Each structure stands twice: as structure tokens, then as C-alpha cells.
């Protein structure tokens, strides 16, 4: 029941408070009749759809290479695909601004897709790596050409994974905050940035609540669709190990491999651009931005130095990861137990745990703002608030990474341990823990980088005297001054280095097919 209590207090309550606020003040009706609102909805969904299409198209060749090819440099590809997904949104926003200084729709779509290529490549690739190649061979033996075999055998088998990946990507893009804020400014607004702007700059709480409600409804719909796709995927396939399926590409397959490497190059472009930008000033190459990290920015833009913010980031993300690990692992264990006993409740809990992933971080941050005053003590200004909000964002990811591995542990292995005299707690320690240990460590590392880069909720909740690095970056970018933007780029580069380091570490810990992301 611990995960449910956590969800209730730090997720359901804030969200319900927003719903209440939106309904009570009649904001919903008002918002619904405004033409402005529908324009926002239209743009939000439109850009999400476009981003999803781009991400799926770019992700498919990568999925193929990751799943089916035995070539050199596969580890590099895997890491290069993973890096964008965990890069802080603000960093990605800035990276794309080095190419499109004025922002716009195209960079928004590309940046959103940039993030989510990893989701497609991993989810689809994960299934692809384990679908039996012999079905394809059978189709070829029956006279189907290679493209025909792909279209009539492979694609249908992958459809559930593509569907569920697209649903998740759509969700992420529709609720994307940092990227749109940095690249859209006040010209191109989605529901998400509008909620932020109305709350923080216009103090229109009921209007913001109404928009949150609208978004929540959309998210719920997409999640349910995703759950349906997942269920089908879990039942229908005979899976096999990757090792026996991967082989060197041949003939036309090399074109696909080429496309995959082109995508990788494109993914690396913003990263390289960002680092170049952090080192170049009007007067040529310079480390000025990095040196400035030890200051409070141009004319005291910040309340603390960049280094202080970095230290604070590291500490906050650590707390968040710890909370998320406890809640996430506990939830996963409960879910496995419930699923085993065939309880219907398991599916409800499963979907409930995914909700924070889809409900925008901004909504969560906003909800905290209007509810946490009611808690005893000075919780609203407590330094624990930011880690808790980040933990909420990270927990679903950890559940998704650990759950499949736990489910893959043969139940009879636990039974064998029990018949040998191991109590349930001992079985968990002796059997489950050693078997999921690596993926647990990977999940922790993964959660850590996501917490490190979390921007949506943190930007609402971080106190001015204890900001995290992403918050500092956004603040620096919003103020004039060459030094400020130089410092922002340097901070981005720093954050990126830490992130990439974590990803490389995770890759080393990776267990075959450990989860969906």
C-alpha cells in the first residue's frame, strides 16, 4: 500500500485540487468557449503528432540495427540513441537554439522528436530482437520478396510495440515543456507552457487549472490506448533470444544501416553544436562561460553561484532517486505478486503508476503549489519538496525498467527456494535481488539523470536560493547579457557531460531486454 499512499498524497491530491479549482471557479467553461484555447489545443496536438511521426520514422532504422544486426560500433549507436532521451529539456532547447536562434515550429518538432527517437528505437527494437526470424524466413520461402515479407510478417508482429511507443512519444511531446518554452517563447505556446505562463506570470490560477484539466483528459485517453496495445503485446508472441537472431546485414539491409547511422549523426549534431557554442564568444574561443559558473551571473542574475546550483542539483537528484527506487521497487514487487494471483486490481495499479509519466510535470508542480500549504509544518518551503516532485516523475520509469525483469524470473525458481526452506523475504533476497540487481542499478542511474535534468516541476517548486542547474540555465537565458548566455551554455555542457557519463555507465550495466525505454 506504500506506493498507493505516495501516489495519493503527492500525485492524486494535487491533481484533484487542480480539478476542483478549475471546476469551482467556472474556469473550465470559460476556457472551453475561448477560441484561444482551441488554438492552443490544436497547436499542442499538431506539433505532438508531427514530432511523433518524425520520431517513429527516425527510430525504425535504429530499431532494426539494434535488434538484428551484428556490426561493429553497436554500443556507440545504443549510447548515442539513449543520450538525447535523458538530456535535460532545457539543454536540448538551447542546443536547437544554436541552429535556430529565433526558435519556431520546425525546431520545436525536431527537438521533441530528437528526445523520443530513443523511445521508438528501444521499444520497437526490444520486441524486434526477440521475434522469431523464422516466420520471416517462412514467408520468404513461400515466395514473398524481402519488402513483402517485411510488410506482411514483420510489421504486423511489431505493430503493438510501434503503437505503444507512438502513444508514449505522443504523450511526451504533447506535454513537453522545457523545449517549447525555450524554442517557442510566447509566440508558439502549448497547453503546457500556457499553464506555466498563466500561473507564474499572469496569476490566472483558475484558467491554468482549466487547461490542466483539459490536458489531463487527453493524457488519460492516450494512456488507456497504450495499455491496450501493451496487453496485446504481452500475449501474442513467441520470443527468442537476440543472440541467435542477430547477424551481419546483407544486400539492401545496408541501406537501412546507412539510414540508422545518418540518424545517429543527426542526433549528435545538436550536442556538438552546444559544446561549440559554449566555447565560442564574439571575440573567438573562450572559457569565459565556464569561468563564470563560479559567479552569480551578469549583474547578480542569480541568488547563488552556478557551482552552488550544480551541487544542489546533484544532491536533490540523489534524494529523488532514493525515494523513487523505494517506491518503484516496492510497486514492482507488489505488481508481480498481484499479477501472479491474477488480481484485476493489478492492472489498475499498473496504469495508475504510469499516470505521473503522462501527466505533465508542470501540472504536478502547479498542484503542489496549491495543496502543500495544507500539510502540517512548513512543507511548502521544505527542501524535500523538489526531490519528492522529481521522484514522482522518475518512479514510473523505474517501475517500467524493473517490472519486466522481475516478471521474467521463473516463478518456479522462487518456489524451489521456498521448498528449500527460504521464507518469502529470504526468497526475495536470495533469488529476485541477485537476478534483477543489474537492471535495478541501471534503473537507478537512469532515474538519477532524469531527476538531474527535470525542469517542469522543479521550475515551480525550487526556491530562489536553492535552484537546480536546469532552473539556473532557464533563468540565465531569460536575462540579457552576453555573459549570462555564455554561462548558460557552459552549464548545459556541464549537465550534458554528467548525463552522458551516467548513460555510458548504464549501458555497461545493461541486461539484455531490460525494460521498455
Amino acid at each position, binding site marked *: 500500500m506504500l506506493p498507493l499512499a505516495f501516489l495519493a498524497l503527492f500525485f492524486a491530491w494535487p491533481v484533484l485540487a487542480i480539478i476542483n479549482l478549475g471546476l469551482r471557479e467556472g474556469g473550465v467553461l470559460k476556457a472551453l468557449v475561448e477560441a484561444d484555447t482551441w488554438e492552443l489545443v490544436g497547436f499542442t496536438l499538431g506539433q505532438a503528432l508531427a514530432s511523433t511521426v518524425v520520431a517513429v520514422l527516425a527510430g525504425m532504422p535504429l530499431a532494426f540495427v539494434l535488434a538484428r544486426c551484428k556490426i561493429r560500433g553497436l554500443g556507440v549507436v545504443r549510447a548515442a540513441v539513449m543520450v538525447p532521451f535523458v538530456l535535460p529539456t532545457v539543454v536540448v532547447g538551447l542546443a536547437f537554439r544554436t541552429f535556430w536562434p529565433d526558435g519556431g515550429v520546425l525546431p520545436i518538432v525536431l527537438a521533441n522528436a530528437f528526445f523520443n527517437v530513443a523511445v521508438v528505437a528501444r521499444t520497437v527494437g526490444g520486441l524486434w530482437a526477440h521475434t522469431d526470424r523464422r516466420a520471416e524466413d517462412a514467408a520468404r520461402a513461400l515466395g514473398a520478396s524481402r519488402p513483402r515479407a517485411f510488410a506482411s510478417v514483420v510489421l504486423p508482429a511489431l505493430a503493438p510495440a510501434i503503437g505503444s511507443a507512438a502513444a508514449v512519444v505522443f504523450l511526451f511531446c504533447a506535454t513537453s515543456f522545457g523545449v517549447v518554452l525555450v524554442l517557442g517563447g510566447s509566440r508558439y505556446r502549448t497547453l503546457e507552457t500556457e499553464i506555466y505562463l498563466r500561473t507564474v506570470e499572469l496569476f490566472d490560477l483558475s484558467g491554468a487549472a482549466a487547461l490542466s484539466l483539459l490536458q489531463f483528459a487527453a493524457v488519460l485517453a492516450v494512456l488507456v490506448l497504450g495499455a491496450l496495445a501493451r496487453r496485446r503485446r504481452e500475449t501474442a508472441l513467441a520470443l527468442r533470444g537476440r543472440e541467435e537472431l542477430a547477424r551481419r546485414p546483407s544486400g539492401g539491409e545496408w541501406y537501412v544501416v546507412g539510414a540508422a547511422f545518418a540518424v545517429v549523426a543527426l542526433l549528435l549534431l545538436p550536442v556538438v553544436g552546444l559544446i561549440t557554442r559554449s566555447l565560442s564568444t564574439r571575440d573567438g574561443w573562450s572559457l569565459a562561460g565556464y569561468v563564470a559558473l563560479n559567479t552569480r551571473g551578469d549583474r547578480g542574475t542569480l541568488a547563488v553561484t552556478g557551482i552552488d546550483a550544480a551541487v544542489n542539483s546533484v544532491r536533490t537528484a540523489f534524494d529523488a532517486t532514493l525515494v523513487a527506487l523505494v517506491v518503484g521497487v516496492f510497486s514492482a514487487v507488489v505488481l508481480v505478486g498481484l499479477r501472479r494471483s491474477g488480481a484485476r486490481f493489478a492492472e489498475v495499479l499498473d496504469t495508475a503508476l504510469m499516470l505521473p509519466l503522462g501527466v505533465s510535470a508542470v501540472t504536478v508542480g502547479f498542484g503542489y503549489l496549491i495543496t502543500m500549504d495544507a500539510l502540517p509544518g512548513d512543507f511548502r518551503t521544505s527542501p524535500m519538496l523538489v526531490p519528492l516532485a522529481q521522484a514522482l516523475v522518475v518512479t514510473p520509469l523505474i517501475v517500467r525498467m524493473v517490472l519486466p525483469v522481475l516478471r521474467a524470473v521463473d516463478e518456479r*525458481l522462487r518456489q524451489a527456494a*521456498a*521448498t*528449500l*526452506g527460504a521464507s518469502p523475504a*529470504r526468497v526475495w533476497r536470495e533469488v529476485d535481488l*541477485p537476478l534483477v540487481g543489474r537492471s535495478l542499478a541501471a534503473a537507478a542511474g537512469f532515474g538519477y539523470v532524469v531527476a538531474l535534468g527535470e525542469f517542469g516541476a522543479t521550475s515551480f517548486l525550487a526556491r530562489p536560493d536553492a535552484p537546480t542547474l536546469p532552473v539556473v540555465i532557464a533563468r540565465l537565458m531569460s536575462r540579457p547579457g552576453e555573459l549570462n548566455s555564455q554561462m548558460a551554455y557552459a552549464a548545459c555542457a556541464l549537465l550534458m557531460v554528467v548525463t552522458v557519463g551516467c548513460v555510458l555507465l548504464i549501458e555497461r550495466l545493461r541486461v539484455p531486454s531490460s525494460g521498455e525505454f
Partner: protein
Amino acid sequence: MALELDSITVRYGRTTAVSGVSLTVADGEVVALLGPSGCGKSTLLRTVAGLEKPSSGAVRWDAADLAGVPVHRREFGLVFQDGQLFPHRTVAGNVAFGLRMQKVEREARDKRVLSLLELVGLEGYADRRVTQLSGGEQQRVALARALAPSPRLLLLDEPLSALDRALREQLAVDLARLLREAATTALVVTHDHDEAFTLADRVAIMSRGRVVQVGPPAEVWSSPVDVETAKFLGCSKFVPGSFVGLDVERVGLRATALRVDPDGLLEGTVLERVHRRDHVRLLVEIGGEEYEAVGPVSVGDRVRLAIDLDGVARVG
């Protein structure tokens, strides 16, 4: 009286997997639950282990009801069809697991592990990874692991079914010797009658959730309780007892009941012949009826056949 099953019924939702089974296993006795797949024998075994809860009825050990005793306190060893060894432990680590749960001292533990590995014929395998073992070796380790904590009762769930035939027959003999030598009380689930007869002192035939017959292997083999059981035990043809000169209403014939013999009393025409491992099996037409028989002749031959009572089972 060691293990006593008292009218056990196990239901999953609306399906009844085991229905009112009563059975006893005496101290040191090996009993086989034999039946086709889906007859409920594995469910029954899992119920004894405590992995399933009976809907009604009781599992007793030395007259004490085990309903409130969880799996890990029953001291019943369990061997699965496919080993289910702990992949993250070595061979010795697997065998030592139950001893560690019993908090046995390290020295005594190591000694016991070595003696068990010797018992199952795997000396020198202690430090191997279990993932490097062959199927037969894995099953031996699984057996050693289950035996290590000296369980009161050993439960074997199709212990040899995942192995190929030659290995299976060899291991069945080894296992039988091992169980006898250690005077182990055991309940074995199997769908293979050769395996059951090799291992068990008594055989319980199961069909559709019920135990239909219990007895020593020879008795069950020669006198199946009904036609269905007889068919399961290899009888392909049912005729009145007078056909083979016995004073019973009905008998079942196995292929070996009719043997090609120039002095035989029956006469027929060979319709088909198939080579089996150690004999040639025939399909012979006798008086308009088809019978199975054995013997070295060709299709189309007119042959005389003698009756071999070893291949005849009294039914009912």
C-alpha cells in the same frame, strides 16, 4: 504412516483440477502419480508442497494437518522437470542453498555438498556454473539440491521428462537406486509408465482429477482397473478372456501379446510392418479384425501367431 492425503479437491475458478483424492505414502516408500498430461497429477503434487491450497480435504504428515504450514516450513524437497537451478550460483552454491537456510555450519555444509555431488555422480563439478551444464547434469544438481537438507519427503515433478530418451532411461535407473539407498520417502509425478515402474514401490493412476487405481507396478500393469487405464498402459485391443484362454470377462492386448510362431494357434495376414527399436511391429488381420503383433515377417505373408501372456492384461 508418513504422508496422508485425505479427499483433496483443488479448484481453479470453475474447473476442478483434483477431485477427492485420498492417498498415503508410507515411510521410505516411493509412490508414483501416473497419468496423461492434464489429469491433475502436478496440481496434486504442488498441493502437497504447499504451493496450491486445496479447496477441501487435508494434507497430513504423521497425522498432523499441514494446512497452516507454509511451503518453506514443510521440509519437503521439490525437483522440477527443468531443474530450475539458481542461475547466479555455482553448482555447489545451488546444492548448499537449503543447508544455508537451515543455518548449517560452513564446514559441515561443504562436506555434505561434496558427498551429495558424489552421490549423484558429479564429483569435481562444485565450482562449475550451472549454465554450462547439460540437461542431465542439471537434473542431477537439482536432485542433489533437493536432497541436501534431508527433506522428510521428496517431491519429483516429471524429473526426467525434459531429457532425451537414452539419458532418461539411464537416469531413471540411477534415480531408483539412489532413492532406495537413501531410503527416501518420495512422491513422483510422471506420464511415462516405464519411469513410474522403474522408480516406484506403488503406482497411483490418475485420470481427470481422480485416482482410479493404486497398487504395486506389476499388479497395475497386469490388471488395469478399466479400459481407459488399460489403454493408457499400452493395451490397443480388447477381447473376451476366452480369446487367450483365460477365465475372465475381458482382457487387453499389448502388441507383444501376439508373437509370430509356426506352432501358434491363430492365423492371419500381415498388413503393415514398422521397425521399432528392438523388434518389428506388425499389423495383422485375423478373422476380419486387426491386431498388433511382433515378429520378423513381411507384409502380405500368411503367418501363425502364438499368445504371450506377458502382453495380456486382465481388465476390470
